[in-house]
């Protein structure tokens, strides 16, 4: 069952997911800094400059707001590990693998008919509250302009325009 997408102002549901074959990450452990949670359908998207590769290039921009960046898909840890090495990704990819898509369902962004999640972005503030979210058509990479605007509105960062 898929719940409706979380709306702004709601607390982000906590979860613990593997970030590497031998490490787990719990969302609530990241309190104190904003979190960008980027759900995406699958590793190994065939295009250059796909969504995760783009965000990887933008780490410096996100760091200006002191924000954590987390990618999340239903792919398993070994798949994520190989993908991260191949694309030289330097941020955690979480495996929403078992039970499959459970976290995506709780955020209301699972596509049961496809077996993967939406391209959905959540910006969560330092207190764990959803401040912005966006679901892109699955075929359209949403870029990062919305994320940066949301981080600016949080006003917690050190960044200036």
């Amino acid at each position: 069952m898929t719940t409706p997408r979380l709306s702004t102002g709601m607390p982000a549901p906590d979860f613990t997911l593997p970030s590497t074959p031998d490490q787990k990450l719990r969302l609530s452990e990241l309190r104190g800094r904003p979190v960008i949670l980027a759900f995406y359908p699958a590793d190994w998207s065939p295009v250059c400059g796909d969504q995760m590769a783009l965000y990887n290039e933008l780490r410096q921009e996100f760091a200006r707001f002191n924000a954590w960046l987390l990618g999340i898909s239903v792919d398993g840890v070994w798949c994520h590990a190989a993908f991260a090495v191949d694309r030289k990704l330097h941020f955690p990819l979480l495996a929403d693998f078992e039970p499959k898509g459970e976290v995506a369902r709780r955020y209301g962004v699972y596509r049961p008919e496809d077996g993967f999640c939406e391209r959905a972005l959540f910006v969560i503030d330092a207190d764990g509250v959803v401040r912005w979210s966006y679901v892109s058509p699955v075929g359209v990479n949403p870029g990062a302009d919305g994320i940066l605007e949301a981080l600016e509105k949080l006003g917690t960062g050190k960044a200036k325009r």
Partner: protein
Amino acid sequence: MSRLTPSVSDSDHRAGPDEAPVTLVEYGDYECPHCGRADPIVREIRRRMDRRLRFVFRNFPLVEMHPHAGHAAEAAEAAASQGRFWEMHDMLFEHQVALEDSDLIRYAKNLALDAGRVKEELAAGTHASRVRQDFRSGVRSGVNGTPTFFINGTRHDGSWELDALLDALERAAKGGPRSESV
């Protein structure tokens, strides 16, 4: 809807009349194979639309993926500072597989630029901030990979194959001249 921010200005590399009814902006990376494939398509479109099109190129080097893209972009900017941006731009897309610093300097020589100056400026990172500024503007504009095109300030999410892109541009042209200022 993702909008070009900031809009086209005098500091941009522009080809075609400023008063053209359509402005096509490309955010591109000289080492990206997709941009390499898009380049002849853009050239053909520029040829066909001629004075009805203004084309603008902004740098969006994905340097984690393409280790030569940063310096290639800086080389184009170095050429721009000698008044020869488009010649270097074309040269780089024609030689995407050879973008080492030594290649970039050779291209500068072939274009009869002051190659010593290009070499010094690459080493000093003279044009790195300009490239970064383009990159940041791309991020703010919703660039989501390379190439990303904007037609009269709006991100073009459709295909950039010749017929599809030309069709989108012609539709924008029928809409008449449009201001890009926000």
